[in-house]
Each structure stands twice: as structure tokens, then as C-alpha cells.
């Protein structure tokens, strides 16, 4: 997955588990940037009566670096507060929820938004309402309208939303985690000699019917860009250091300073590149310290596995791996941004500091005809120039690791034919909810009734 349950510790703490980050110039408001951080992975839409909600005890943050040091220049903090109207019912709602202040809605969440800019803290808003979860036609009969009411417009041209959304990330988890047996190419897989598959098959979107919780903020570009037009973006979640279960109160008490337990910049970074023994450590580090993880980018384990799992399919990649050649292409894409002169007319370079961040060149206008393969599909408005909600990051990163981007740094290298076509077999059309053309861009969440 992009970063769903990607590390041992955070997989046990879904409320603080970041799953995806998006950063893009808003297609319908090109003077603004939209930043989205998703949390609480793989929500079964029918998961009541305690439907999913943000953690009141978690500090959620979206960070923006504008001087290339891998440290935040601007941070948006989100803190949540749950309010229970009636403690004497087991029900999430006691009738249809027709508005955000509906008396029928029992368990509501509110949040504050704080901005930290160069050490100056300012609360931008308090007591902003979240929408409920999408329960079904009797409980949330006009969910789209409810969610629309939860889009808040703040002074300074800021728009913000926090609440449930349909999962927009698509991936064939079943095949990838079954020893990278990509269904469209499974007859080429070595199958460990078991000869299980005699036909190729289309991909299956494992996240086709699950929801996430999104924190989304839209900000004027002028409020973020101070020097370089390229923004580095990532999210983090932090918890206080001490948790004590007070049996007398029947609740957890938290104490002490906050400590980062989850972070996410580029999709699949911790998931696919960082080894199991260091994933928890990675989650606790800031991007500015990512030099210590750079070897996993320069020599990705998956690049060595592909030629073994698919014998004869990736001979040139196999030679590259055997030679021990550092993958400067992946380092540029994931850790520094792509300098000018590599891809004609494009750069999202932030400097020499190795830091896992989404890097968005805000001077590149939204594409009128987006290609979900982003830059490798000839569309510089997409990943790895930031990331749009519909970008096919699984295929892009599979192909990059397979060698399709190595000629950017070594023109004598000829990628294998398979590197340009390898995919898990999914596209943005594999997402049943589709996407919205306006903020918050991720689709209406799947309802529990219709998606049991």
C-alpha cells in the first residue's frame, strides 16, 4: 500500500497511521495549492456503531518546506475534539442526519487549525465541524451535502476540510503481497516452480470499497512560496510520550511532550524501500535526516527481486543491479527533486539535502489533459511533481524501480521492454467512487448500507 500499515508499530495504531499525501496546484483554483493527508486506513464502511474518527489524542500535521533543508517552514496543525450528545444510547445517530448540527447525530467531531510559520504560532480556526461517516440512506440521506457543509472557508483564502472520504489510492494488494505476482504478467512469474497460473489476469483493486479520513487544506500559493517555487510537503502524526490506562476512570491518560509516530511524503517510500527492521525508526525521523536511509533508495531491494521473480524479463535491470550501480534517478525523484536540465522544461529540485518529501513546482499549471502516469507519461503536473489524487503511483514507481527512469542520469542505459509496461493492472477508473473536480477532490465515501 502507499503507506497503509507500512510499519510494525504504526500498523497497530490506525488512528495515527498516515496512508497517503497529495500536493498539487488546484485545477479549479490554480492560484492555490491543495494539500491532503489521509489517515485511518482500510475503513470498512459498515464499521459501526463506533464509526471511524480522528484521534483526539493525536497531533496531526502537514508540513511545508520552502528552503530545501527538509525541515518545515510552515506547519498546519489539526487537533480534534469528540463531543457525545447522549451517553445513554449505543447509537451513533438516533435519526437521519440532515445537517452538521442535527440533534440526531450523537457522536460529533470538531477541530482546530493552527499554523506555525517560522516559529510564530497562530490559531486560524477553532471548533470547525467534521462531517459524519457515510452510514446509509436512512442515516445520511444526502451525504454529499453534509460533506459540502464541512468545507470551511477561512480568512486568507484558506479552505479546509477534515473527515471521511473514499479511498482514492488504487493498488492490487493481493497480487503484490503474494510475492509480487502481478496479475497481468503472472505467467512470466517464476511461481516458485509451482505452476499455479497459466493465464494472465486483470488487476484487482483491493482498496475499491474502503474509506479513509482526510485532512485537506487549500492555500494560496503566495502564502506558501517564499523563495523557491518548489514546495516540499509531508505529513506527520504525533502522540504524547506516556499513556496510562486509568482503570478507575476507564480511560487512557496521556502525558508528556508529543513524539512523532508516523510520517509520509512520497508514496511507498517507507512501505517498499525501507527494510522492516528500520521502518519504525523511519517513522520517528524528520525528512532532514533521511540521508541515513538513502542507501535503500540507491539500491532498492525490489530492483534486485524483479529479475529473479520474472526470469529473463528484466535482463538489463539485472545487469544494473549486479554492477551495484547507485540509482541516482531514484535519489533525484524521491530525495532531492529533479534538477533542471534532466527533463526538458521541468525541475522540482530543492537542493542537496536528501529528504523524502513530495516536491511540487508551483509554477507548473494544472494539466488540461492529465495523464495518470504523471511525468513519465509526459504530464509534468503529476507525480513526482507533487501528487494528484488520481495519479497511478504504483505503476509509476514500479516502472521507475524497473529502470525506466535510469536513462535520465545515464543515457547509455537501455531499459528493458518490460520496464515500460509493467503495472499492477489498475487505473484511476478502478476507483468506483471516482474523484471530485473540486475541493476536497477525493470522492464521496462509500456508505455502510451500500458497501457492507
Amino acid at each position: 500500500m502507499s503507506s497503509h500499515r507500512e510499519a510494525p508499530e504504526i500498523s497497530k495504531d490506525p488512528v495515527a497511521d498516515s496512508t497517503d499525501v497529495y500536493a498539487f496546484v488546484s485545477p479549479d483554483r490554480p492560484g492555490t495549492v491543495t494539500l491532503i493527508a489521509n489517515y485511518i486506513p482500510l475503513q470498512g464502511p459498515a464499521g459501526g456503531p463506533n464509526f471511524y474518527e480522528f484521534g483526539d489524542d493525536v497531533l496531526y500535521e502537514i508540513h511545508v518546506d520552502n528552503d530545501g533543508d527538509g525541515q518545515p517552514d510552515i506547519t498546519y496543525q489539526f487537533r480534534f475534539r469528540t463531543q457525545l450528545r447522549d451517553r445513554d444510547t449505543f447509537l451513533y445517530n438516533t435519526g437521519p442526519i440532515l445537517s452538521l448540527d442535527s440533534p440526531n447525530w450523537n457522536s460529533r467531531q470538531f477541530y482546530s487549525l493552527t499554523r506555525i510559520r517560522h516559529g510564530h504560532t497562530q490559531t486560524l480556526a477553532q471548533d470547525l465541524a467534521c462531517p459524519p461517516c457515510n452510514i446509509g440512506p436512512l442515516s445520511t440521506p444526502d451525504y454529499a451535502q453534509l460533506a459540502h457543509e464541512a468545507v470551511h472557508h477561512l480568512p486568507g483564502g484558506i479552505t479546509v476540510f477534515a473527515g471521511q472520504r473514499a479511498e482514492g489510492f488504487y493498488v492490487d494488494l493481493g497480487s503484490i503481497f503474494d510475492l509480487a505476482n502481478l496479475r497481468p504478467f503472472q505467467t512470466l512469474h517464476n511461481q516458485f516452480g509451482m505452476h499455479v497460473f497459466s493465464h494472465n489476469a486483470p488487476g484487482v483493486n483491493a482498496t475499491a470499497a474502503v474509506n479513509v479520513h482526510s485532512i485537506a487544506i487549500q492555500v494560496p500559493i503566495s502564502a506558501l512560496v517564499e523563495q523557491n517555487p518548489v514546495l516540499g510537503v509531508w505529513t506527520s502524526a504525533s502522540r504524547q510520550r506516556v499513556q496510562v490506562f486509568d482503570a478507575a476512570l476507564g480511560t487512557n491518560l496521556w502525558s508528556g511532550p508529543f513524539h512523532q509516530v508516523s510520517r509520509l511524503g512520497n508514496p511507498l517510500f517507507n512501505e517498499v524501500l525501507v527494510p522492516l527492521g528500520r521502518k519504525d525508526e523511519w517513522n520517528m525521523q524528520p525528512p532532514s535526516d533521511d540521508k541515513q536511509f538513502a542507501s535503500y533508495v540507491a539500491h532498492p531491494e525490489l530492483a534486485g527481486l524483479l529479475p529473479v521473480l520474472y526470469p529473463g524479463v528484466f535482463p538489463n535491470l539485472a545487469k544494473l543491479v549486479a554492477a551495484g550501480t547507485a540509482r541516482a534517478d531514484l535519489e533525484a525523484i524521491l530525495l532531492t527533486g529533479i534538477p533542471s536540465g534532466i527533463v526538458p522544461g521541468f525541475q522540482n529540485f530543492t537542493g542537496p539535502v536528501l529528504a523524502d518529501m513530495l516536491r511540487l513546482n508551483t509554477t507548473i499549471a494544472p494539466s488540461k489533459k492529465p495523464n495518470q502516469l504523471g511525468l513519465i507519461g509526459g504530464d509534468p503536473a503529476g507525480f513526482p511533481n507533487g501528487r494528484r489524487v488520481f495519479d497511478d503511483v504504483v505503476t509509476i514507481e514500479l516502472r521507475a524501480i524497473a529502470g525506466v527512469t535510469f536513462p535520465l542520469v545515464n543515457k547509455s542505459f537501455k531499459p528493458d521492454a518490460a520496464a515500460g509496461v509493467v503495472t499492477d493492472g489498475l487505473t484511476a477508473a478502478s476507483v468506483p467512487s471516482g474523484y471530485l473536480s473540486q475541493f476536497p477532490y477525493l470522492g464521496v465515501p462509500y456508505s455502510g448500507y451500500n458497501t457492507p
Partner: protein
Amino acid sequence: MSTQSHIDPPVDPSADPASAQEQRMSRRSVLRGAAVGAGAIGLATVAGITPALASPRPASRTAAGKAGTPAAASAASADPIVVYLRDAASGELEVFAGNTQVRLHDPAMAARLTRAVR
């Protein structure tokens, strides 16, 4: 940061064996209810804390000023105090309250805490 803490007369678990028994934990566990500082906040105060205090709401324009630190007051007088005896042998303690943490070096206190749970 102090290298030697100033401690009010400690809560003596031996005066209440039942209470000590209930709180039996391993040496490296988080120890709750130790009286530290002038307030000598004990278990009775902790029991009065509401869940809302475990997730303080941010206040406007507080001094946090950096990522990873919420815009909230540091430690209110009603916050529970949690003491973590990190290393009984050296007397290294970490004391938590609100959003704050201090590290103390107090072998005598460490010895009392250790006796209390053994």
C-alpha cells in the same frame, strides 16, 4: 535540567500496603502517583482528571512555535504527573505532566520507588 531533584516528603507505599500491592509493576514500568515538586500531587488528584484533559484544546498564540509541539498550555496544576523510572541503578527518572517532560537524577527517590513496587 536538574541533576538533583528537590523532593517533597515522598508518598510512602509502606504506609498503605494494599495500595502498593495494587500498583505493582516492573522496575522499568511507568510509575504513577509519585509526589514530585511542591504540589505533591498524588493519586487523589489524578483520579479527578477528566478525559478531556488528556487531549487539551489548543489555545491561540501560545508559545509552542515549532512543529511537533501543539499550541497548548504546558502543564496545568490539575494534570496528572507520571514518573518513569528509567534506570533504578543510576536514579535516572523522567517526569511527565501536560505537554512537558523533565529528567531528574535522584538515586534516593529511585530507591524509594523501587522498594515500593517490590
